[in-house]
């Protein structure tokens, strides 16, 4: 028996190692394949090549899709955050008729399968005549990312020391000043964490977007999915590698800033 009751034994560390290998293997394989000099899927046994990264630059369709995803993520995360802040304040601080209903309504997209949302939006947007437009993508994405922003903003409001607001008021601040100078800055980490989680959720979304995207307004995941349906070549690996690198950078910022486990407790 180990001396320290709170340390992991050898068996535990072996399990942990296999678990980490399992988690990282597919990502490592993608990165390896991306550097192949050959024209087909293979490991770069004969030396590394940037050939498939240069190939990305020859594919404006992928680059367009990337920018669409980026814009979509930024716009929908921002809109969802703007809707969440007042809603979270009301839900956290008032007891009013319909409060439970609204809370359930705003979180319901977590319970509705994205495939169902996809077909529902497909029908709705084509009936009202905005099918396939960027605006329709934004509207759909605000719905699916708002539960994340709301949860994190709500947690921030609830975790706030109400006495600081009273202190501000006692020092002569009016309610508006107190909100702007005391409440909002203290909510900011939660708001920013929510925004980032919403952004990445929107950026990655495939299942619903596959129904509402159009050839002229397609996102990177949809573009990749459609590409995989046709063929799988090292171009996918190099595009994926770029996504992995960007996501890891984003993740480190998010973790540094807010704590990844805290953010992700709000996911799912």
């Amino acid at each position, binding site marked *: 028996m180990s001396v320290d009751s709170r340390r992991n034994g050898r068996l535990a560390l072996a399990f942990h190692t296999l678990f980490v290998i399992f988690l990282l293997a597919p990502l490592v394989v993608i990165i390896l394949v991306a550097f192949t000099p050959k024209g087909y899927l293979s490991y770069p046994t004969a030396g590394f090549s940037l050939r498939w990264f240069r190939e990305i630059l020859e594919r404006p369709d992928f680059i367009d899709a990337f920018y669409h995803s980026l814009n979509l993520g930024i716009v929908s995360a921002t809109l969802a955050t703007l809707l969440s802040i007042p809603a979270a304040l009301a839900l956290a601080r008032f007891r009013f008729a319909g409060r439970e209903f609204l809370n359930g309504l705003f979180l319901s997209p977590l319970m509705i399968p994205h495939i169902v949302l996809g077909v529902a939006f497909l029908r709705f947007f084509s009936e009202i005549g905005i099918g396939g437009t960027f605006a329709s993508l934004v509207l759909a994405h605000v719905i699916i990312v708002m539960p994340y922003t709301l949860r994190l903003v709500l947690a921030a409001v609830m975790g706030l*020391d109400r*006495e*600081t607001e*009273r*202190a*501000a*008021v*006692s*020092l*002569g*601040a*009016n309610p508006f*000043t*107190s909100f702007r*100078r*005391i409440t909002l*800055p*203290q909510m*900011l980490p939660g708001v920013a964490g929510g925004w980032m989680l919403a952004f990445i959720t929107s950026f990655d979304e495939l299942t619903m977007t596959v129904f509402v995207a159009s050839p002229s307004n397609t996102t990177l995941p949809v573009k990749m999915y459609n590409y995989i349906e046709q063929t799988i070549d090292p171009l996918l690996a190099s595009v994926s590698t770029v996504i992995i690198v960007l996501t890891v950078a984003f993740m480190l910022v998010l973790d540094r800033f807010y704590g990844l486990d805290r953010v992700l407790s709000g996911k799912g």
Partner: protein
Amino acid sequence: MSFLTLDSLTKRYGDTTAVDTLDLSIERGEFVSLLGPSGCGKTTTLQMIAGFALPSAGRIVMDGRDMTDLAPNARGFGIVFQSYALFPHMTVTENVGFGLEMRKITAPERRRRIRQALGLVRLDHLDDRYPRELSGGQRQRVALARALVIEPPLLLLDEPLSNLDAKLREEMQLELRNIQRNVGTTTLMVTHDQGEALSMSDRVVVMDQGRAMQIAEPFRAYEEPADIFVSTFVGKTNLLEGQVAAGTNGQPCVDLGGQRLDLFGAGMVGDGPVRVSIRPERLEMTACRQGLVDGRVQTRQFAGDHWLYQIDTPVGLLLATCPNCGPASFDVGDEVGVRWTPDSMRLLKDRPKTTLSLGGMS
């Protein structure tokens, strides 16, 4: 004319009355404590004075001006909150300067007054820190500086020292009182700690169930408690059940389980059953049969500066303290006598419905 007057102040929440027709007058420069157990209404009273709770009835008048309906941000009182409520996203300087900023005071003047306030609480060297980088005692001082820098006519302290550990709390009691004396700000403090209230205040308001049970100087509240609640809540006491009767020499006396003791200046409460309160330090332990009652030492505790004895006697279990002047004179199991002077007895009427056990302590 008093500086702050609470006139029949009342707060009801539904069927419960948190504060019940409280009357209180505070002089300019005075330090007054609201003392009581949790739920006694002391915090609600403070909230109403601060403007965070609306009184159901009654008035709050300061310097001849009715403040009852004034907005909390227009009252200009300095408040030190129990949690300190420092703004976590602002430095010490920004925290202290917030109230001055709200008063649109120019930057140079603001800097001068912040420096002065931080000097007062001896924190000049920590002006760039954020609250989470400070110790509990330092946060407390920042909270105090933030409340005092606006030069409030009234300083409200809500359990200001309850989050500090025992040793620091004693130091801060002294320091807080010194600062208050130097600045001269009229101060109202809420606390559940009777030691704190006694040592810091000019007067204490002992509250229970929304009512002020006694308003007096600390020494008077301790020596002449108005009722059983005050006698047990403020300090420790022995409460004996007795009967007032006429003595042999015509003097009134009290009958404690067969023991008849003369009353001199113990306060008359008329005939009938009474409770007699005697402070533990007023009991003197002697050899057997040399005191007023005999008993056996049941427990002995050492408390540094004094010894604490529990003595089983015919009149009940008595709590006695003796100053530590060398090794203890008595041991557990010893037969001892206990005596006290008649003027150390306080006769108290029971409040109806309140039941207190013999020798009950707070």
